């Protein structure tokens, strides 16, 4: 399996590229990052003297800014390999701690969202292929096109507005009610679930349409295949043809899409999570950008890219096992 090695080398290349990219990103910043930190420390009163500020700023940076650039790069890579990503300048917590705390929340909502939109979309798409040519199909396709066109963060804004402000039915912010003690109690689980409803709905309502339209197009093509005509000639029931003959054959290409969505599981959407103040990785990402918290931004982007790249690699390998017709590496 030569292509697996090729694919793995490529993933490694991509990861090294992002490591170097994130290292240089901080240098693109206008002005000297060190001076910037010192300024922040002095202004916020977290350091009383300039010497203290300089010392603290140095400890925040993952590398020593006075070293020659190649040594800084090597130090940075060494730090990354040891899981040391520096500290956030807004909260002073290690970046790795923030990532470990926030990643599970993102994976939690985005995996539910992905499962729901894939299932609902696939079922709807097959139903539409079954009802092809009817007025119901025409209307649904138009509605799906509109839903699919709405950006997920706009949907999130609408849901936030309607269901937490105009009709305050669902919780507005956070991953759970902070008044309920954290633990495996019924109350806590219910709280986590109700807080997840709106972010999940924002993803599902905008994503399911794409899945539905995709499988509908595929199923319409499969319906023209000879073996479907033969099945019809044998007098099989239409519903059986749709599920067993058409469904199975049109679902495979959907997996390509599913594979490509794996990255989304870890990244989530910075905007949707920010709108609901959800404690996931996307929200920290957005707040790191607006607070100009470069070490945090650097670390989050790096971890995000590494997870996405590795997930895609694994998915690619799995995919060839599912569909033997796929030849990767052409």
């Amino acid at each position, binding site marked *: 399996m030569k292509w697996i090695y090729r694919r793995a080398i*490529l*993933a490694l*290349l*991509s990861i090294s*590229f*992002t490591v170097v990219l994130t290292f240089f*990103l901080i240098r*693109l*910043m*206008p002005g000297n990052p060190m001076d910037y930190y010192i300024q922040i420390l002095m202004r916020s009163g977290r350091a009383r003297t300039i010497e203290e500020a300089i010392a603290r700023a140095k400890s925040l940076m993952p590398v020593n800014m006075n070293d020659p650039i190649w040594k800084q790069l090597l130090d940075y890579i060494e730090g990354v390999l040891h899981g040391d990503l520096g500290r956030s300048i807004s909260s002073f917590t290690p970046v790795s701690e923030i990532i470990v705390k926030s990643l599970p929340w993102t994976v939690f909502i985005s995996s539910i969202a992905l499962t729901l939109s894939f299932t609902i979309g696939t079922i709807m798409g097959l139903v539409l292929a079954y009802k*092809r040519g009817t007025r119901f199909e025409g209307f649904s396709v138009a509605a799906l*096109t*509109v839903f*699919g*066109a*709405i*950006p997920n*963060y*706009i949907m999130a*804004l*609408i849901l*936030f*507005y309607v269901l937490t*402000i*105009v009709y305050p039915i669902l919780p507005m912010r956070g991953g759970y009610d902070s008044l309920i003690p954290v633990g495996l109690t019924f109350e806590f689980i219910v709280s986590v679930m109700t807080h997840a409803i709106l972010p999940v709905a924002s993803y599902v309502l905008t994503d399911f349409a794409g899945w539905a339209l995709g499988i509908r*197009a595929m199923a*319409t093509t499969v319906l023209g295949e000879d073996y479907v005509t033969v099945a019809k000639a044998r007098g099989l029931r239409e519903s059986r043809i749709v599920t067993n003959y058409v469904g199975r054959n049109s679902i495979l290409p959907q997996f390509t899409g599913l594979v490509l969505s794996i*990255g989304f599981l870890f*990244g989530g*959407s*910075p*905007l949707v999570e*920010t*709108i609901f103040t959800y404690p996931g990785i996307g929200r920290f*990402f*957005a707040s790191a*950008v*607006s607070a*100009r918290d470069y070490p945090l*931004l650097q670390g989050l*982007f790096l971890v*995000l*890219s590494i997870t*996405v*790249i590795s997930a*895609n690699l694994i998915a690619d390998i799995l995919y060839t096992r599912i569909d033997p017709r796929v030849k990767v590496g052409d």
Partner: protein
Amino acid sequence: MELNDIVSSLRVLVENKRALIGSLVLLGFILMALFGPMIFPLDMNPKFNLVYAPPSLEHPLGCDYIGLDILTEIIWGARDVLTIVMIGGVITVVLGSIVGLVAGYFGGVVDLLLNTLVDIALTIPGLPLIIVLAGLIQTRDPISIGLILSANAWAALARSMRSQVLSIKERDFIEASKAIGIGRLSIVFYDVLPILMPFVGINFLFAVVQSLYASVALFFIGVLPFSTVHWGTMLNIAMQVSGAIFVPYARHYVIAPVIFIILLQVGLILFSYGVEDIFNPRLRT
């Protein structure tokens, strides 16, 4: 293009409902962006007696958090929004097409290098990369914003362009051009590219759709420096700056940009699907 061709493509456009609705919506937005600012001058002086004034004859969409007319802001915003997405779309398509054409036609080491670059660009998560770049570069210049928006969007087009070129490369007329000694670059740009123009055109529309998604997100999240009347900025102000979203009598200020963003996005998508139907008759059902 002959007059007949124009008439027949217009007829196809009218017959295709999606393309028709989409193109009407887009035409509306383009007219609004081109001529709107001439008819509705932008007055940035706060009028505190008009803060969150409800829609009226004088102010059809009401007023914002400092008493400015929302309709005027939307109209001026349309110009910002459209300029940025157009530039984003053009840069994405030009980069993607050139890389795809060169990689596909030249093959060999060039192809290997470009293909690896494409693979790397495809695996790095898109929106986060765009947000990081926008946060670091902090630019107001529309062309720089366009470059940021196409940070890795070009790669997908380069990939599909390359495989299109690979299939065209073997055709007879290319052989003929080679035989009479036309240079490789000339063949790529005069023989191969024209055949792929419809494909490039459709991908331009898709790139514009992506740019709209990402650019509104950037302004909404507040990463790009203040462009006062961009619809994304209006949402950012409503949500994070003025808190209008929590004020019951300021509803119109939140709803107006949301509706226009959705309208433009739907128009663009309908138009691009419609155009795809027209150029890809096999998909017509």
